[in-house]
């Protein structure tokens, strides 16, 4: 479990001027949960994600991962093993010249025995469905495949929490689908805790819980079907709602009786057919 208690984060522009990026965040993330964090650019969601494994440390407040406070220097390496990170740009997080060596990089640095490294790499490659590419140079892979290699790297470290900061922002639709399916599989089959930061509302509805951020604070929090019905509030924050919800919202204004918590096309078809 990750507990965030009254977390404040300031960025210093110069010695006098500071910017409050996170302003009193309280949030508990349960083990095995699939959480999505959405918010406009500059709302603080990436800053928050970097607190989850101690890449950033609180200006005040606490972040506690499985009982370990990120403020304690002695905890930091254990926390970073527990909480794996995948960033936006697939080009920026691959270090080795061959896929399997890249995945082995983490456990090698922990001094894991070679036989076990092999096991972990095999397991990670199999989970993300990239066994076929193990001997490939990563720069020849597509963006989506590179992101899956980054995910595999976290798995090989033994991470129980996977934090993904807009992992699909630079991918085409096929790559996006591929990465999202991998994330869902990890959550459902391997019980991994997933924290997904995204601008794509169609991805956020797949989560069990959605946190909406604005100006460094948590604005809304709840199940997707409870969050995305707040169409006007979300738009005020500069966010979208899924296309089906937006349509339902517009049709409601025309006095049609269609609920807002519809995200899937086939559900919408069911509601619309009686009218047509």
């Amino acid at each position, binding site marked *: 479990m990750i507990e965030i208690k009254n977390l404040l984060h300031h960025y210093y*522009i110069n010695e006098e001027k500071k910017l409050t990026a996170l302003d009193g965040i309280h949030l508990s993330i349960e083990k095995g949960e699939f959480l999505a964090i959405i*918010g406009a650019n500059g709302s603080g969601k990436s800053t928050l994600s970097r607190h989850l494994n101690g890449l950033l440390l609180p200006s005040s407040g606490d972040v506690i991962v499985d009982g370990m406070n990120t403020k304690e220097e002695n905890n930091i390496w254990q926390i970073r093993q527990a909480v794996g990170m995948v960033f936006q740009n697939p080009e920026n997080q691959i270090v080795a010249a061959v896929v399997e060596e890249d995945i082995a990089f983490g456990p090698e640095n922990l001094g894991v025995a070679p036989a076990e490294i092999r096991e972990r790499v095999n397991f990670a490659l199999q989970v993300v469905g990239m066994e076929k590419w193990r001997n490939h140079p990563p720069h020849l892979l*597509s*963006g989506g495949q590179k992101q899956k290699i980054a995910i595999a790297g976290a798995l090989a470290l033994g991470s129980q929490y996977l934090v993904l900061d807009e992992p699909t922002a630079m991918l085409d639709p096929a790559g996006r689908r591929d990465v999202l399916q991998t994330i869902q599989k990890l959550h459902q089959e391997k019980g991994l805790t997933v924290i997904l930061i995204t601008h794509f509302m169609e991805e956020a509805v797949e989560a069990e819980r959605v946190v909406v951020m604005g100006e460094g604070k948590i604005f809304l929090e709840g199940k997707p079907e409870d969050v995305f019905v707040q169409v006007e509030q979300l738009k005020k924050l500069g966010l*979208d709602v899924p*296309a*089906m919800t*937006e349509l339902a919202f517009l049709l409601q204004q025309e006095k049609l009786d269609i609920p807002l918590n519809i995200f899937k096309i086939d559900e919408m078809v069911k509601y619309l057919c009686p009218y047509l």
Partner: protein
Amino acid sequence: MSIFIEHLTHLYSPGSPLQVKALDDITLQIEAGEFLAIIGQSGSGKSTLVQHFNGLLKPSSGNIYLEGQNITVKGVNLRLIRQRVGMIFQYPEQQLFEETVFDDVAFGPRNLGITEEDVEKRVQNALALVGLDKQKVGSRSPFQLSGGQMRRVAIAGVLAMQPDYLILDEPTANLDPQGRDEILFLLDKLNKEQKVTIILVSHSMEEVARFAERIVVVHEGKVLTVGTLAEVFAEESQLEKVGLALPPITKLMKELNRAGKKVETAVFTPKQATSELLKIIKEKRVRGKKDV
């Protein structure tokens, strides 16, 4: 008035064992004044294609004509061509470099050898077009602005050159929905009010469906289809085969069709769908009353 691409083929690393055919015999006409979208998967060749339009890349074979002038032959003044055909790359904010917003936008015009007064006018106009106020942001460092604002400053830098054609390579990547909308509305305004030809490279069908008049689908270095939105979106199975998804609203309309409901499927946004559905519901009510 057009850009005409004739049998364009582009090879990367020609003659080496790593030779790749990035573009394969592309012929395409872009009309002045239109809003054209070029879509395709990563690696399909769409960025390579547009980089030929202002002579940044030279074809391995084939020709590019800008309003009748072949720009691929020796002795062409590429500076003039690049003034007329502006290019905005992916993540253009990474190319900002001056100390102030004003200087950054002024960099291009100052190299044209025009008076400082004219430069100032151009900068002011360009910033106004992208929705920024010269008085407010002109003297600020571009690096203190938000991501969406930085991107708009970078776009203003190209607009200050007053191009007739504007190419944008995935200009909304990484922006939040509001920032994305600001850019798309800006392009629509430039196209309608300033008569700038827009060539928008994207892999989002939802995005191009909002403003583009015509779509070119590029796949494995070839043009798969060219046509209006309705024509291209009619070929759903072909699009899905090449990894492109229809906008969810268009999918919904097709599903309704399959369920036996007669609805127009060339509908791309929730707003359009609302008016189409309301029209049908009203017709049904009228018919219902007549039957009674």
